[in-house]
């Protein structure tokens, strides 16, 4: 199938883009790399009147360091993070996630901002960046605002983006030196959307961490304090992982199928194990 007819504008800078979004004519979709929107257009599941193509907006294709925070422009691609053109928040944390997204030819155009705006629960960035405590920076003609990613993601394919607004950047604080990042994706084949996702940042030295279960039919489940998964506090390793806590959370989130809860819990456990293992060795020795 071919896409239904639409108009296309290619703003040269952010101001132009926001102007266009402020005065929408019909249904307007913002497109960056087009790797999520493209298939839906080609299936005519989405038939916008206007596409605002922001792929060339320079303000979005950059990064910054603000103290310990790395600000990644929404227009940076998965490949930019995979290849290290944009900085990582720890040793290969973002790069690891990025390199597992779809396929290289998709990663060369697909953007971080686009993936978050699409908010597909089976995509990698929502889950991974929740674990890394990311904030989303939004802009519209009336101004800018920041939202914790958890507040930004409101459901499956659903976000807090207001009319006229777009994502300009993702802000991620650099991980603490003693933290480890675990990220496990369960899929039937390489490059497929995830059937289960587990992400965790654990700092055994600080006895703290958080964990995320993704690839549900809804927004990811966040354990702000991963300690609840270990009987109260984050210990030196993942051995005291309490499946029932995670299982209850999934049940409460409406995951009725027992087998899929089992897999989600197991993938979360593996992400936690990985996070402990990847925490720098001195920390673990001390613990």
């Amino acid at each position, binding site marked *: 199938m*071919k896409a239904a007819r639409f108009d296309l504008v290619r703003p040269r800078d952010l101001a132009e883009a926001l102007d266009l979004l402020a005065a929408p004519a019909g249904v307007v979709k913002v497109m960056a790399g087009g790797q999520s929107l493209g298939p839906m257009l080609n*299936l005519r599941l989405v038939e916008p009147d206007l596409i605002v193509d922001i792929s060339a907006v320079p303000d979005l294709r950059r990064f910054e360091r603000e103290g310990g925070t790395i600000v990644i422009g929404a227009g940076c691609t998965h490949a930019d993070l995979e290849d290290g053109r944009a900085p990582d928040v720890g040793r290969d944390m973002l790069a690891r996630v990025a390199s597992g997204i779809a396929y290289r030819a998709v990663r060369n155009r697909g953007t971080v901002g686009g993936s978050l705006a699409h908010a597909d629960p089976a995509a990698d960035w929502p889950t991974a960046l929740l674990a890394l405590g990311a904030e989303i920076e939004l802009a519209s003609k009336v101004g800018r605002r920041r939202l914790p990613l958890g507040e930004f993601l409101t459901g499956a394919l659903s976000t807090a983006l207001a009319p006229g607004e777009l994502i300009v950047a993702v802000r991620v604080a650099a991980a603490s030196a003693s933290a480890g990042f675990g990220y496990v994706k369960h899929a039937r084949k*390489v490059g497929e959307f995830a*059937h289960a996702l587990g992400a965790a940042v654990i700092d055994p030295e600080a006895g703290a961490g958080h964990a995320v279960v993704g690839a549900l039919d809804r927004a990811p489940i966040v354990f702000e304090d991963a300690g609840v998964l270990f009987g109260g506090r984050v210990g030196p390793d993942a051995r005291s992982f309490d499946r029932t806590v995670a299982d209850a959370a999934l049940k409460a989130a409406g995951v009725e199928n*027992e087998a*899929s809860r089992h*897999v989600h819990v*197991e993938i979360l456990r593996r992400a936690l194990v990985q996070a402990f293992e990847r925490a720098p060795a001195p920390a673990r020795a001390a613990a």
Partner: protein
Amino acid sequence: MRGRGQYVADVRLPGMQDVAFVRSPLAHARIRGISVPPELRDRVFIASDLDGVKPIRAVSGLAGFKPSEQPPLARDKVRQVGELVAMCVAPTRAEAEDIAALVELDLEELPAVYDMRRARDEKASLVHEEWGDNVFLETLVDVDIASAFDAPIKVSRTISTARQCMAPIEGRGVVVHLDRRLDQLTVTTSCQMPHIVRSGLSECLGIAEERIRVVSPDVGGGFGYKGILLAEEVCLGWLALRCGHPVRWIEDRREHLTANADCREHHYEITVYAERDGTIRGVDCEAIVDSGAYSAYPFSACLEAAQVASILPGPYDFPAYRCRTWSVATNKPPILPYRGVARTGVCFAMELALDAVAAEAGVTPEQVRLKNLVRPDQMPFDNITNKHFDSGDYPEALTRALRMIDVDGVRARQAAGEPDGRRIGFGLSIYCEQSAHGTSVYSGWGIPMVPGHEQAGARLTPDGGLELRIGAHSHGQSLETTLPQVANEILGIPTDRIRLVHGDTAMTPYSTGAWGSRMMVMTGGAVATACEELVERAMAIGAHLLQADVSDVRFEMGRVVGPNGDVALSEIARVWYRRPQDLPLGAHGGGLEVTAGYKPKRDSGTFSYAAHAVVVAVDSEIGSIEILDYVIVEDGGVLVNPMVVDGQILGGLAQGIGTALLEEMPYDQAGQPLASTLGDYLLPGAAEVPAPRIGHMETPSPYTRFGVKGIGEGGAIAPPAALANAVNDALRPLGVEMLVSPVTPDRIVAAVLAARSSTLQRRDAA
């Protein structure tokens, strides 16, 4: 590799317009109205416009078969999601789709028949009302099954295989134009069987066959799907006549997945009776095949189910057998023959049941098989369903496979356990592939196509080259390589001077086409026969040029050799074409151009076979499967080109892995297909397919030229059974047995959890 192939979508004709179809969104409904905006009336065509076009009818001569009528555009009812309802024409596909979106359908929804197991219920909705039920065909074979009932071991299993899509990377597509000079409808279509498509088009369009030319250009994979006459082809044929300009329809992936290319959905209730040592006493089976809404041309809706009955025994020799089959109609796309056809499902059912027998008898899977496989000393062998096995040593293939995969080492590793907690499983499966079966087999079926002699044309060119013409089509089977090899063997002409002309009804002899793994046996035999006739012609001329008697010359390495000298074939060609004055009086007027036919000495088919052995590691907590080792020992008779044969096996294996682990076209209760992209319908990628080790045996067929056998489909037959058996071997200690393909992580985890909870319940009860 330079982008210079010419596939159907690459054909460019002046004035060509694109077609998009309006398809049914519902699985089963009465059409109450189709409304076309008046200003688009000349761009949209519906059933009532198609004057004189007949429905597609693929009959079968088997007793009790109910033929279906598939109107190219739906008339009163739609019987599957995706059925064609209207045809829209515009300068581009996108614009044609714009028009299609403006056509409104008024449909009265009817309950959908979505589950083949319930299609025969009394209350089931009727796909074809006039039938009174939903059964295309029911068959029964009973060979003394009662004699097995007292066997000490009786193992029953319910086994099923998912509906799949063939999914060649290129879909179907057709470009039609009216060649006014020749008054010929020229149909360029991505197909495996151009001559059969022509016959089908002729029947449906009511145009004599000589007024239709079917050209099959480069074809991007077929696997059976491109052997079928499509309603789209009929529609475009009519449209080109009506519009006067060339028209084109290129199937997109959504159409392919949701409307057109379904295959493989089988259901088995199988019982094996055996002695305590695993010797089979009898096999009793009820099988249902979900044939979909229509009988597809030319193979018909009963190809699969009726074959199930005759091939279920596979390479095993046992004394009692009963098999009842039903080909049922459902509100799904017609089931089409996909590489392996019924054999993949049959192999899955039989090989899984045999492993269950092994478990019950307390012997190894290999012991059960070695006990029951047909032995080489029985060859040629007529099995319980009267299949005539030409040759082969099945136990040897199995034994070699066991050796290659080091079964003892695998068992030791399995017993030791893996450090990461995964479970090792070992699986086997063996199949036989009857191929290149001809008149004697197909005449009994009474379908629109019965293969007879396969013909090939061979023509020496004036400068000593050779043109070969075959009516089948090569699309990845490398006939462009192997047939010249055959001709070179006989004529000695270098292969780079041999051209293969194929895929064009105007330029090639009639052929039923590329199907049934018959290409090498049949076209190879035909090419050889034609080349031999050329040799005779050449010898007559050569002898004259050498001033010798024909009986004194021989043909060697591309030369006619006489007592006092020799003359090259190229010189003979030069004389025939350019210096006819030098020809003998009474030279054969046919010259150096021959069309010859070939049929094996016995056309009941060749039986190639293989033993597959696989080692997997199963992660029972998340259901993932890693293939650690894969061994294939195959016997395809004498191999013309081992690299090409390996290519067919490797490609088949990848498809078999798709069937085993990934591919499934699910339908909901409304008959809606639930996968419309390759993101939902998963094809194996490079990371999912192992690098197998292949061992070759070469037991010649006594009936064919050079002793070759057909091998094109075999690779896809055994993997689902071997992999499921391996998974079951890994999970048997947990009380888990997977009997449904594909064996997916979800299914494994669900089964593991169910087994755990039933273990707990038993403990509680005790």
